[in-house]
C-alpha cells in the first residue's frame, strides 16, 4: 500500500496555504507533518480525509480498496474528540465502532487498551480532556482501517497516554498500516519520514523574502 500526493495545492478563503506539495508514504511507514501554526498541517490531513477540496494536484492510493475513497479507508482523528457528553464511555465507543464498522471482535479490548475500562459506564461528560482524547483513540483500535490520519494526537495526553499512543502507532505500522500525523513534538516513531510545510507556503516564502530585503536595507545603511 502506498499513499502519494503530487503537486498538491490547498486553497482556503482565496489564498494558497501550501502549493506544490509532493509526498509519498508506504504501508508500514509514518509521515510526520511539521510546520508552524497556519502552515496547513490540519488542512493537509483534512484534504487526505476528503474534508477539504484539492485545489490543484492529485492524490493516489495504491493497493487500497478501489471502491472506497481514501477517507473511507482512513481513521481521521481531528482536534475535536467527536464524543457526546450525555452518552457513557462505552456507548460513545459502541456508536463509532458501529458507524465506522465492522468492529473488531473484542468489545472491551479497546477500552482496556486506553485504560478507560474501569469507567466504561460513566458519562463522557465527566471525563478530563486527556481521558476524552484517549476515548477517541480507542475508536482507532475498535475498527481496523489501514490509514491513520492523526492531527496533534498527543496534545492533552499525559506521559503514560503518550506512551500508549506510541505503542498503538508502532503496532499499527508493524501490521502494515500507514500513518500521517501532524505534530509539533516528536512522537517517538523510529524511521518516520518528515514533511516540513514551512517551505511550501507561498505566503511564507513571500514574507521571508520581504524580511531579507529589509535586513539588506538595514545592513546597507551605515
Amino acid at each position, binding site marked *: 500500500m502506498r499513499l502519494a500526493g503530487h503537486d498538491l495545492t490547498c486553497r482556503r478563503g482565496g489564498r494558497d496555504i501550501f502549493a506544490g506539495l509532493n509526498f509519498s508514504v508506504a504501508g508500514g511507514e509514518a509521515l510526520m507533518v511539521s510546520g508552524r501554526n497556519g502552515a496547513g498541517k490540519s488542512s493537509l490531513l483534512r484534504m487526505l480525509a476528503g474534508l477539504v477540496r484539492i485545489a490543484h494536484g492529485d492524490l493516489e492510493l495504491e493497493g487500497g480498496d478501489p471502491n472506497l475513497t481514501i477517507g473511507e479507508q482512513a481513521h481521521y482523528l481531528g482536534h475535536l474528540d467527536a464524543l457526546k457528553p450525555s452518552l457513557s464511555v462505552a456507548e460513545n465507543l459502541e456508536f463509532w465502532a458501529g458507524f465506522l464498522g465492522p468492529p473488531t471482535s473484542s468489545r472491551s479490548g479497546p477500552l482496556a487498551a486506553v*485504560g*478507560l475500562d474501569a*469507567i466504561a459506564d*460513566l*458519562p463522557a461528560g*465527566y*471525563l*478530563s480532556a486527556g*481521558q476524552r482524547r484517549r476515548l477517541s483513540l480507542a475508536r482507532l483500535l475498535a475498527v481496523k482501517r489501514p490509514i491513520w490520519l492523526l492531527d496533534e494526537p498527543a496534545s492533552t495526553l499525559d506521559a503514560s497516554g503518550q506512551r500508549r499512543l506510541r505503542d498503538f502507532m508502532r503496532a499499527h505500522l508493524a501490521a502494515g498500516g500507514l500513518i500521517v500525523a501532524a505534530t509539533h513534538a516528536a512522537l517517538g516513531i523510529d524511521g518516520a519520514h518528515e514533511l516540513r510545510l514551512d517551505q511550501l507556503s507561498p505566503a511564507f516564502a513571500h514574507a521571508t523574502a520581504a524580511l531579507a530585503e529589509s535586513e539588506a536595507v538595514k545592513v546597507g545603511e551605515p
Partner: protein
Amino acid sequence: MAAANLANPSRFLKIASPAIPWLGGLTVIAFAVGITEAVLSPDDYQQGATVKIMFLHVPGAWLGMLGWGVMTVAALGTLVWRHPLADVTAKAAAPIGAAFTFMCLVTGSLWGRPMWGTYWVWDARLTSVLVLFLLYLGVIALWRTVDDPSRAARAAAIVTLVGAVDLPIIKFSVEWWNTLHQSASVFRMDGPTIDPSILVPLLVMTGAFTLLFITLLLAAMRNELLRRRVRTLRLMQASVVG
C-alpha cells in the same frame, strides 16, 4: 436544635429513611378510613354520585398549591439562607406538585362534563390552575436542562418565586371574576357551608392525600440526595482513573 440537625443531609437521611415506611403505613390507614367514609357518604340531591369526584378534586387542588408553596419556601432557602437541603426539597417537590395539579385538572374536567356540559371552559379558576400546571412543567424542564444542580437550583428558585404570584390568583379567582366554578365552601370566615356528612370524609381524604404528599416528598428527597452522592462518587471515580 432538631431543625438544625435535619439541615445536614446525612442527618436528614438518618431520620427520614426509617420514617418513610411508617408514614407510608399511616397513609394507607388514612386512605382506608377516608375511602370508606367517602363511599358511605350520601349523594348530593342535585349531582347524585358525581359529587364524589370532589374527594379527589379538592385534595388535588390543595396539594397542587401546597407543592408550589413548599417550593416557594425552599426557593427562599436556596437564595437567602443557602440552606443545603433547600434545593433538594424544591427539586423533589416539583413533580409531586405537578402530579397533584394534574389530578385536580383531570378530575375537574370529568366533573365538568356532566355538570357544565363540557370538559373544559376558559374560566378564571380553571385557567389559573392550568397556568400553575404549566409553571410546574417549566420548572421540571429547567431542572432537567441545567446539568449542575446548584446552578439549576438558583435558576429554578427565581422562577418559583415569580410563579408564586399565581397562588393568590387561584385562591381568589372565584371572587374576583364571574366564574362557573363554585366559590370557597370549606375555608371561609363564617365557617364551612358543606353538610358535615360530606365535610368529614372530605377532610379525612384531604388528610390522607396530604400524608401521601409528605411521604412521597421525603422519599423523593432521599432519592435526590442519593443521586447526588452517586454523581459525586462517579466524578471522583473519573478523576481517580487519571
